């Protein structure tokens, strides 16, 4: 893990070429962060979803992190460190590692595809293999509808899949959870955009059975208030 961050540091400090036209592949970077809070079952849940890259036009170090805190305690926290290579006009292939800090320490191998699908859908699809051999996958897609140049609605879907059931984590096999969301943000600047988001989360299959047994319900509607930053 730390070697990857070392690599990132080296990339970030690589000098840009002084020529009128760039020789080689000058290094740029990008960071997108969303942080929001919601009231769920009378508890305050804070969540973050962030990603960024450092690198050239075709080869990049790409990191992703997401997680949630309930009343100040980490529920989920994960970070991914990926090598991302541009394989076609709109798509990057990604390979690397994911480490879950919470709910329990776990390392995964990651292989994924990220890019822009027709109709301007941002898509991120990845498969994970845990250190104990469990296979899972995620699919995320978001679109954009502009009300004005700054008031933007971002519909999104997210699906989680697991190859095998895991009773200890209350997960069934196949499609386990889905989220359908609508984020409405106001881009004061490209860098700073507060948002509100409505998300409907639903569990499926055995995962739904586990959830109903635990909480009496297999779905939830969450209202979030957050801030999106890009730099």
């Amino acid at each position, binding site marked *: 893990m730390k070697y990857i961050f070392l690599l990132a540091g080296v990339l970030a400090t690589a000098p840009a070429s*002084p020529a009128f*036209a760039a020789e080689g592949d000058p290094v740029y970077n990008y960071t997108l962060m969303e942080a929001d809070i919601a009231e769920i079952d009378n508890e305050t849940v804070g969540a973050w979803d962030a990603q960024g890259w450092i690198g050239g*036009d075709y080869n990049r170090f790409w990191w992703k992190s997401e997680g949630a805190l309930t009343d100040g305690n980490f529920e989920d926290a994960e970070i991914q460190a990926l090598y991302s290579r541009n394989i*076609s006009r709109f798509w990057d292939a990604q390979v690397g590692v994911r480490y879950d800090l919470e709910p329990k320490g776990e390392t995964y191998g990651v292989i994924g595809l990220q890019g*822009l699908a*027709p*109709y301007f859908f941002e898509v991120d699809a990845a498969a994970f293999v845990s250190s104990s051999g469990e296979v899972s996958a995620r699919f995320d897609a978001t679109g954009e509808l502009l009300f004005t*140049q700054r008031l933007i609605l971002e519909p999104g879907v997210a699906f989680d899949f697991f190859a095998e059931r895991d009773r200890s984590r209350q997960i069934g096999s196949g499609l386990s959870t889905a989220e359908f969301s609508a984020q409405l943000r106001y881009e004061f600047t*490209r860098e700073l955009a507060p948002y509100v988001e409505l998300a409907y989360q639903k569990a499926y299959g055995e995962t739904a059975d586990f959830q109903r047994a635990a909480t009496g319900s297999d779905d939830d509607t969450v209202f979030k208030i957050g801030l999106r930053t890009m730099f």
Partner: protein
Amino acid sequence: MRLKLAGLLIVTSTLSASAALADVYDLKIDQFERTVEGKTLTGVSINGASPGPLLRLHEGEDVTINVTNTLAVDTSLHWHGIILNAKMDGVPGISFDGIAPGETYTYHFTAKQSGTYWYHGHSALQEQEGVFAPIIIEPAAPEPFQYDREHVVILSDWLNDSPYKALANLKKRSNYYNYNRRTVFDLWRDWRNADGAQKTNVIKERLAWGRMRMDPSDIVDITGYTFLVNGETPQDNWNALFEPGEKIRLRFINAAAMTYFDVKIPGLKMTVVQADGQNIEPISVDEFPIAIAETFDVIVEPEAGKSYTIFAAAKDRSGYARGTISETPGAEAAIPELGPRPELTMTAMGGSHGDHGITNDKPKSAETGMEGMAMGMSADDHAGYGSMSAMETGPIVLSYADLRALTPYTDRRAPDREIELRLTGNMERYVWSIDDVKFGDAGPLELNYGERVRITFKNETMMEHPMHLHGLWMDLVNGEGDMAPRKHTITIRPGETISADVTVDATGSWAFHCHILQHAATGMFRKVTVIGGPQ
């Protein structure tokens, strides 16, 4: 802001009319500060000003220019459109090593031509920070037109953001500066305004753009520029003075980083007499488009007692550069309307390009999905290159089809071979390229000394590109045969194919690139190497 062209005539030599024909000029590259709309930025100047001093040379003159670098980084100056020894062309990494901090580099060349040209920085993004200035080379023989007074009109654009920051922003998000994207209300309005069967076309077109992941509002990469005439904002209102009865020669130079202009002077016909410093058959127009790095010389005859606005509208209509022709300083004239912002249009949607899914994507391909589809610009299409004779009504606008050399050039051989160059790009990555390969990954383009080669540009992108070849003239293939105009910069519109014939009569290595500076910086650039020839 009040940056007068104080430096305009500061050259070390006295400009004697007799022309010593061997003058020495001293230039210093230095930082300067410019405040536009309340924001002060540090730019880069030549002799303390931007534009820098006018170099007024004489045909046949042995020119010596000492350039001192007082910056903390390397610098360079390139003499745009000047035919000279490759080592004197001023492109770091191709002509020479650049000028290190604290060093003085001496350029030598003999001025073998005459006309309006310019010079600018060719290191990093310094030209965008202010390093540019005009060159006038006085002809040895009298010119085939008359005028009583002349003014240089150098157009430029100034961003209240450093060009390095702007490029970093575009790499993060290529629509960073686009606040003209289509909204759901635009779609609703278009749908409501369309009748009957057209309604489905509105939806179809919207879906077609989405399917191709292209944006019709993506007509410029950066908006937010302030447009300048001779370094002065529209509020500053640069004045071109005249005495009653005089014919005025205006030497227009587009030194902008990213901006095409449409130039007009309401109330005055402009007689275009030179393009890129070369005499052309005089042609009277109301308006002319000027691509980045081009020059046009026009002659106007203002009426006594009147003032006229020189109006250079940015192609995206986000603003204008303005000056005033008048008898007295500070005079103003009416400023025309800018007109609507143009959008890209799909005019001939074929049915065969509907499947641009993942599987169709080629690695690093510039597949833009433009097969079977013609693109044009709406709202603003009069800047086109069709013959103006078709335009019976409305303003007469100069087009490439109208350019005819005044005298035929000596080499009228048919080309020995043709090189096709596809102008390509990937907006998602903000990478611009030629034949899908950016400069950093490309080898040199090889030409053979003595050959006549046809270069055919095929623009596969959504943007117009002004291609500039150093060291060798390009004879524009515009149907004028032996009277084809000779240019150093040729602009190619989206979806268009244009050819130019080149006589390879210079040795050494040369730069060849798009003069939209962020396009050159990200890879629409080649090194041209001439094989053979006298040592």
